[in-house]
């Protein structure tokens, strides 16, 4: 293939590396323990029949081989540190290094969760300060930092909704979820024992107010709304949505996955949201780490406060303390207090930004998305024309005429040196054709221009040489994988002799 239109990258050798087990050989060591300062123990005598004699195929390798192994593996990954990572709904922004430095400070990194409270004031202070900042950012009244990720936050939030209705003595049956929602929303509602009722979007990609008012009744506990929604569109009739819910005694849940469009510009608490979760690994820059850890705090209005998971941080005199005595609590959703390391990082991010930086961040994120939209909408179909916020959703409609689908365009973007956008989601885009692009504020104009150039080139290739797209990527270590066989005959572990 010709690389002549590819400006951002060029080919580069990458090292081969087998599985760590294939490097293993008896007698190699990657560790050295200090000598014991107590008498040795007879394990056989202490453990009896519970004694384990062998650790099977666990590897035996030297320290330097481990360094080389994982360094080589790392070079096979794309990452935000290498370039734009425009996965829509995932908010792949810069992960500031100072966050990593502060979280590794001895007192925080090596704090046992069961330290006596007087020895844990620093950690409690981190959680308290972060809580206050997030409450202000969301315009809510209280918060729990306990959930470990977005979906876990959703579950916690919907359990709060359940507890609220239970306390009123009249449980409801259903949760309404727009057809544009993330898959975790319906999965969550099901875990919380609610029936899921689908709510269709209107032609503008927003909640259909007529449908909502027809479906909203006293069987409905809540509407799970993502705002801006997964099309990157702000629900302009949010006040009507909130009113319709509240008039019938229902609650408005907001999936805060897209808060990067709102911080410092609008507050969910001000537009009628009763309960919402945040993704610290999206909006608040904690690293995605190849798929986690995340953190999914849930912010709420006053009327849901009695039901928060235990413990809750409270001020006791001049100290902070954990309050476990909360009879109406939904209980714990996780051992200990949540992903504290993410709390530290998110607080460091907020302090580095301040109010002006947080606002500017949102403005830049929205400007970047609108710039991409403007520069691409003449060559890619824009299925929903409403104004975009932090992300823009295009479709493959024009390219599909040449047999090129969103997933193919995504693969070709890899050759141009970019991580693909989110493909085929949201499902409201016809023909599973969504091209969902979220640049975030972290991309400079130069990177955006290269991305635009790549997308425009690919659109041209779709007409002139679709095969080059259909067989992409051409420049990676491996080509498209045989996923069918992977599914049909799963090989989920290495076995000795394989």
């Amino acid at each position, binding site marked *: 293939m010709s690389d002549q239109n590819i400006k951002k990258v060029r080919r580069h050798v990458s090292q081969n590396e087998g599985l760590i087990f294939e490097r*293993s050989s008896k007698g190699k060591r*990657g560790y050295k*323990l200090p000598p014991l300062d*107590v*008498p040795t123990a007879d394990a056989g005598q202490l453990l*009896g029949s519970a004694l384990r004699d062998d*650790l099977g*195929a666990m*590897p035996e390798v030297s320290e330097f081989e481990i*360094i080389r192994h*994982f360094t080589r*593996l*790392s070079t*096979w*990954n*794309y990452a935000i540190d290498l370039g734009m990572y425009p996965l829509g709904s995932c908010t792949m922004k810069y992960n500031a290094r100072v966050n990593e*430095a502060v979280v590794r400070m001895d007192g925080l*990194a090596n704090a*046992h969760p*069961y*330290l006596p409270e007087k020895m*844990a004031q*620093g950690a409690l202070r981190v959680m308290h300060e972060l809580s206050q900042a997030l409450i202000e*950012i969301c315009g809510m009244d209280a918060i729990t930092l306990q959930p470990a990720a*977005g979906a*876990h936050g959703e579950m916690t939030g919907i359990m709060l909704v359940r507890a609220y209705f239970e306390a009123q003595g009249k449980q409801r049956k259903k949760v309404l979820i727009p057809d544009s929602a993330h898959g975790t929303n319906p*999965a969550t*509602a*099901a*875990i919380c024992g609610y029936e899921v009722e689908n709510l269709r979007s209107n032609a503008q990609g927003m909640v259909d107010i007529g449908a909502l008012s027809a479906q909203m009744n006293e069987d409905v506990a809540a509407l799970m709304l993502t705002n801006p929604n997964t099309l990157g569109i702000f629900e302009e009739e949010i006040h009507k949505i909130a009113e319709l819910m509240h008039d019938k005694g229902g609650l408005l849940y907001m999936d805060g996955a897209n808060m990067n469009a709102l911080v410092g510009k*609008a*507050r969910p608490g001000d537009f009628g949201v009763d309960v919402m979760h945040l993704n610290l690994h999206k909006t608040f820059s904690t690293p995605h780490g*190849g*798929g*986690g*850890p*995340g953190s999914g705090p849930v912010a709420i209005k006053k009327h849901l406060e009695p039901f928060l998971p235990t413990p809750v941080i409270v001020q006791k005199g001049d100290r902070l303390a954990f309050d476990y005595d909360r009879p109406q609590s939904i209980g*714990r959703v996780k051992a*200990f207090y949540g992903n504290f*390391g993410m709390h530290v990082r998110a607080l460091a991010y907020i*302090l*580095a930004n*301040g*109010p*002006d930086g947080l606002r*500017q*961040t949102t403005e*830049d994120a*929205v400007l970047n998305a609108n*710039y991409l939209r*403007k*520069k691409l909408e003449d060559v890619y179909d824009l299925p929903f024309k409403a104004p975009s916020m932090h992300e823009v959703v295009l479709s493959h409609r024009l390219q599909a005429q040449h047999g090129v689908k969103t997933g193919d365009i995504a693969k070709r973007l890899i050759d141009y040196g970019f*991580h693909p956008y989110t493909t085929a989601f949201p499902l409201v885009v016809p023909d599973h054709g969504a091209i969902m692009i979220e640049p975030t504020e972290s991309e400079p104009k130069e990177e955006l221009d290269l991305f635009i150039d790549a997308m425009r080139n690919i659109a041209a290739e779709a007409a002139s040489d679709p095969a080059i797209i259909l067989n992409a990527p051409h420049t990676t270590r*491996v080509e*498209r*994988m*045989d996923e069918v066989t*992977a599914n049909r005959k799963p090989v*989920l572990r*290495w076995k000795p002799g394989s």
Partner: protein
Amino acid sequence: MRYLPNSESDRRAMLDAVGARHIDELFSHIPEEYRLKRELKVPRQMGEAEIMEYFKGLAGEMSAGYGIMLGAGSYSHYRPVIIDSLISRGEFFTAYTPYQAEISQGTLQAIFEFQTMICELTGMEVANASLYDGSTGIAEAVMMAIRITGRSSTVIARSVHPEYREVLRTYAQHQGMPIAEANFGANGRVDLKALDAAITDQTACVVIQSPNFFGTIEDVAAIADIAHQKGALLVVSIAEALSLGIVKPPAEADIVTMEAQSFGVPLGFGGPYVGVLATREKFVRQMPGRLVGQTTDKQGRRGFVLTLSTREQHIRREKATSNICTNQGLVALMATIYMCIYGREGLKELAQQNLAKTAYAVGEFSKSAKVLFDGAPRFNEFVVQTSGDPKQVNDRLLGEKIIGGLPLQKFYPELGNAALWCCTELVTKAQIDAAAKAVRA
């Protein structure tokens, strides 16, 4: 703002391109009354040096430099330096879930190695790419057992971590999943008769922890027999992963769920940690969470992909096996590197050191206090009953820069003045001697 790469002239150029005079025009579709017209009330923007100082102050209010004799689901083990060297590579920590296999082979292969090592250690046939932690792992395992058996209830041992049990209750409360508890006997192990009596024909699974919350190793084979005879599955939770270096794996279990924090993950005031779920091959399609599988590309080269995703929420929506999406990727990578460093011999040697420290400590504490639950093997934790309040013992030890055991009054009032102590390889003989002395005083 130093993280933002666009200059004022870049912004101007982009605004011109989109045809907006002012940035606020891009927010004008948010109804006027909901637009925030003031700055957020959060602390002002700080310089990097100030941020470092601020957190140094907070970290200084903590227990840095203290010996830690607390365990209870969070274990203070030495973390080899290269773990942070490797996980700090931006290609690992600033990547997302490996949806695009061609440019995520590093993450995918590392997860495949993680899954393999977890299988080797637990004696199971398949393991997932991780769950949030050990506590939610139990809830996911129970939901899985309910799907497999078509039964609805659970019997959980009271010797399972109290917070893990609380989490299970939270998850179960709205799903029509009744939970019964089975008590422990005088040796700290599950009371087998009580367990047997608690299992009904609606019991989907029995959940135990081994080593259990008291550090005592359960008789897994005997419990498996009891559960299986009544058609229930056995779920074994492991909170102290290092025990697997020297304790026989629970191979009789149907599902093993483990907290792998011990494998190179900082205490970090309780998280992020890394949960694991491992099981038998025949149950793989009922598993929650991500799975990585080996396959080949068009040229026949070995490679790895996320697989069996039809179980998951983004495909199945409300019918998914779990709502989980994000897992604990980077923490699983820490555990993977840790398992490579210690490997087949080191995990055994390290576990043996923990065993020896604990055996020594039990001997010393026994001279002046009552160590409960003798008569069953333990790994690196033990329960000590004192004449006075264990909180006073702990207060005395703070002067020696030692964090003493966890008072159990809150969780097990029937044990009186008892506390749960832990001796990892990092606890010194001098600290054990000082603690034993404080218990005596």
